[in-house]
């Protein structure tokens, strides 16, 4: 169909939880790139009778662009060869760009495939400041999606020096400066202090932190201090999204203690804990793993200032790609080793580790991870604060979201799947005990759109009220929710019809989401000195802003 300037989507069952609408049949009106309250009666109509209308999907945590993602792409030629993406023929007769898929698709394919699922916004979850210019260039080549990225802090030398010196105000000014010069959206903390130790080398037994009070170089610098400093900075700067925390001890048995301790440390302050599934294990080092999802989610349920995304594991191929480089070393070398492994230490800032990985139903740990993720979803009492992610492509790709939605909405299907997985480590898990909950469509609309948009502070996303961005996804109702969510009938991005009946019709450029907080510019004098002494990139060339 053509793409009128005004459009009334009429007769659909609307799920717009931010505006309290839970399946009521009503019209949604688009004018230009916005939702409006009303249109003249003669405005063009799209008959959505019998269909389901939701805001465009919002992915709060995904790895889609930047140096680490591109390292992963380079590592996976066989996946790309197996999944060619032909050029879509657009409405105007032109061919869009080609690409390749696999677990880490090319940029254009990433945009098409997200849009094909009805997602119109995504946050790249981990970009080292040094790679910010690269990340923006990739996002420029990622069509349709409105996108931003979280910039990595928490293992960077300058910050750790400020913490060691007790300079919390300067640390805050530095964070603000860094967000601005890299054109980032939020602060990401990955394994605070642990990556810094890994990069320092030396004794294999002391190349990571294990607890919140481990010393990182100076005894004044600990994971706890890093979390406190950056969390306070983000909240004082009134950033739209609080600190986005990947806790210490990812993937380790017994790590739920660290996760809970991190949450308590930041208690009373807004903080987001990402891919919570990977941080919710019981047991202890050297002993069998078990689920600790119940303990962790009970804390989240009781603390309205705390939010999370799940980081669900889905069976099938994945690629683990993270700034948590010591974890990737463990993954590369345990269970027989022999996997491809990339490590990139990023000077003065961060790290990067990559290991391609397949989660198998018959593998006990993978099955536990799958179960832990589902437990977190099903035991969560507030979908607004516990939202959907697979930490793409770490726990599985974003293409598995429809299957995940079916697992959440369809208990009998879930129980059938549970029978097929290795249950060796599932003793005592809530999932095995039987969880009857089934997500409603309204709750799915929350965990895939309204919730992430609210947690990100994106006021014009994730809802269909007047003034919202005209990002709208329309599904043909289908009892098989996996099928329904995999193939929306229509997807509008900023009022432009981008997907129709599974076909890409238009591929407009997306917009960049970034912040530019105020700070005391005195910090830049000190930074200039630091750069002169330590950095290999000139202060004036740093960041991602255009140069004269």
């Amino acid at each position, binding site marked *: 169909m053509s793409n009128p300037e005004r459009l009334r989507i009429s007769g659909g069952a609307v799920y717009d939880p931010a505006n309290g609408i839970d399946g009521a049949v009503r019209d949604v009106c688009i004018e230009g790139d916005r939702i409006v309250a009303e249109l003249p009666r003669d405005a063009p109509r799209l008959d959505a009778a019998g269909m389901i209308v939701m805001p465009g999907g919002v992915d709060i945590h995904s790895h889609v*662009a930047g140096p680490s993602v591109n390292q992963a792409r380079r590592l996976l030629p066989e996946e790309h060869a197996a999944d060619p993406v032909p050029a879509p023929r657009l409405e105007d007769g032109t061919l869009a760009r080609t690409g*390749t898929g696999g677990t880490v698709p090319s940029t254009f394919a990433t945009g098409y495939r997200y849009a094909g699922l009805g997602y119109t916004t995504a946050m790249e979850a981990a970009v080292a400041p040094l790679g910010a210019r690269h990340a923006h260039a990739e996002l420029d080549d990622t069509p349709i999606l409105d996108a931003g990225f979280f910039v990595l802090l928490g293992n960077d030398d300058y910050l750790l020096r400020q913490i060691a010196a007790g300079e919390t105000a300067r640390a805050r000014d530095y964070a603000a400066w860094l967000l601005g010069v890299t054109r980032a959206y939020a602060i990401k903390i990955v394994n605070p202090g642990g990556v810094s130790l890994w990069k320092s080398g030396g004794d294999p037994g002391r190349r990571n932190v294990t607890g919140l009070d481990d010393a990182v170089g100076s005894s004044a610098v600990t994971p706890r201090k890093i979390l406190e400093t950056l969390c306070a900075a983000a909240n004082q700067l009134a950033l739209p999204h609080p600190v986005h925390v990947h806790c210490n001890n990812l993937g380790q048995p017994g790590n739920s203690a660290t996760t809970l301790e991190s949450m308590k440390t930041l208690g009373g302050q807004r903080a987001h804990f990402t891919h919570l599934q990977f941080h919710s294990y019981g047991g202890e080092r050297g002993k069998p793993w078990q689920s600790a999802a119940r303990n962790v989610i009970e804390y989240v349920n009781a603390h309205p200032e705390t939010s999370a995304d799940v980081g669900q594991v889905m069976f099938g191929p994945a690629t683990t790609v993270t700034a948590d480089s010591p974890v990737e070393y463990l993954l590369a070398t345990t269970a027989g080793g022999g996997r491809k492994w990339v490590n990139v230490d990023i000077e003065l800032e961060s790290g990067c580790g990559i290991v391609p990985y397949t989660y198998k139903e018959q593998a006990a740990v993978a099955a536990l991870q799958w179960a832990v993720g589902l437990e977190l979803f099903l035991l969560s009492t507030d979908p607004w604060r516990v939202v959907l992610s697979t930490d793409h492509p770490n726990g599985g790709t974003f293409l598995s979201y429809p299957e995940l939605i079916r697992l959440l909405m369809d208990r009998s299907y879930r129980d059938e799947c549970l029978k097929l997985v290795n249950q060796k480590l599932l003793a005592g898990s809530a999932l095995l005990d039987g969880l009857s909950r089934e997500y409603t469509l309204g709750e799915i609309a929350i965990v895939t759109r309204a919730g992430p948009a609210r947690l990100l502070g994106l006021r014009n996303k994730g809802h269909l009220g007047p003034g919202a961005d005209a990002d709208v996804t329309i599904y043909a109702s289908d009892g098989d929710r996996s099928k329904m969510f995999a193939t929306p009938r229509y997807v509008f991005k900023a009022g432009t019809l981008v997907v129709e009946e599974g076909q890409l019709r238009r591929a407009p450029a997306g917009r960049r989401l970034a912040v530019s907080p105020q700070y005391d510019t005195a910090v830049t004098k000190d930074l200039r000195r630091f750069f002169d002494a330590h950095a290999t990139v000139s202060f004036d060339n740093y960041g991602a802003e255009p140069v004269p």
Partner: protein
Amino acid sequence: MTEHVTCLGCGCACDDIAVVVKRSRIAEASNACTLGAAWFGDGVVPAEIRVDGRAATLERGIGKAAELLTGAARPLVYIAGDVSCEVQREAVAIGDHLHAAVDSLAATAAGAVLAGQRRGRATATLGEIREHADLVVFWGVDPGERYPRFVARYATARGDLGKTRRVVAVDVGASRGPKDADVRVAIAPSDEVDAIGVMRATVAGRDASAAQFASAVDLARQMMQARYTAIVADGEPGARAIDPDRAEALIALGQALNGPARCTLYALRAGGNRSGADAVLTWQTGFPFAVDFAGGPPRYRPGAGSAEALLADHEIDAALVIGAPATIPGPVADGLDRIPVAVIGPRASTSAVRPVVAIDTGVAGIHEGGTAFRMDDVPLPLRASLEGPRAALDVVRALRDKLVHGAR
């Protein structure tokens, strides 16, 4: 004076150059090494547009280039040096549109990249060498020759680390490490891959005691005792070709050394923003070089699908070169000399491949801004310090537009 200028003379991409212009010429490029000074030169470049050797308008040049490419049964787009990532992105788009084969200057290191695709790699950005490495091993390379400021900028430790750091030169036949190394280890070229294998066995705790490998075993033990070893090898062919087996063996050794200590491996890369071409092709297609759009979506054809092989097999009937033709490796240039070629880039009109269409542009980093990648994939901004001829980005965009919408 323009400060903080990034030099693309080699892959070091030193970004501390101050360029002084007098009377429309570069009078000085301070901080630049001899290689960098030669790369900047006086900044004077031709500004011609030639079709069949005769002066032409830009419109005619673009029209003729489009005609040449759309008329070709098997076109090649080759990304040469001294263009920005922004230009490279357009070049790949043109290749995609034309269903062309696309290759670039980054393919000079194909053997090492392919080894990395099989195994991965433990590496770091360059600043980590000076920041953390207490043992630096130059493996058959003296960076002073082709990467003159590498050691000063990236591999010289300061403070306490500078006092304890040791530098090892591994001399592989005539490919020798730096003269001023603290320790030298000699390995016969015919023993090299085996020696690396023995070192890896040593790291894994397996005792390999053949006498001919004693010095290599000893080096492996030193690396295991260091806190953080940096292994620096040449990623570019030179006096000796890239040996894929050696590249893979070094990768495996570097990875294994992360058991007892930390170790990172660096492949030195040459200039012209070739690392940018690798990065751009990877994000747009999923593959770093030797990409073929002939069937529509990108196919990866390292080896048989490289520009060099396709030209040698007479498979290509017309080519578009985007970048400075002077940077094209000999075998590729020889192949291009036999077919009709359109060249858009710095000094296109002086190209030895005798192009049908030559459109001179400015040099990225001298006359034009944009983005370039350092050899370790760190992106850097480019700065224009001098007025130049038409911008490569404008010309390439105009050609793309002509190709996509020309029939309208």
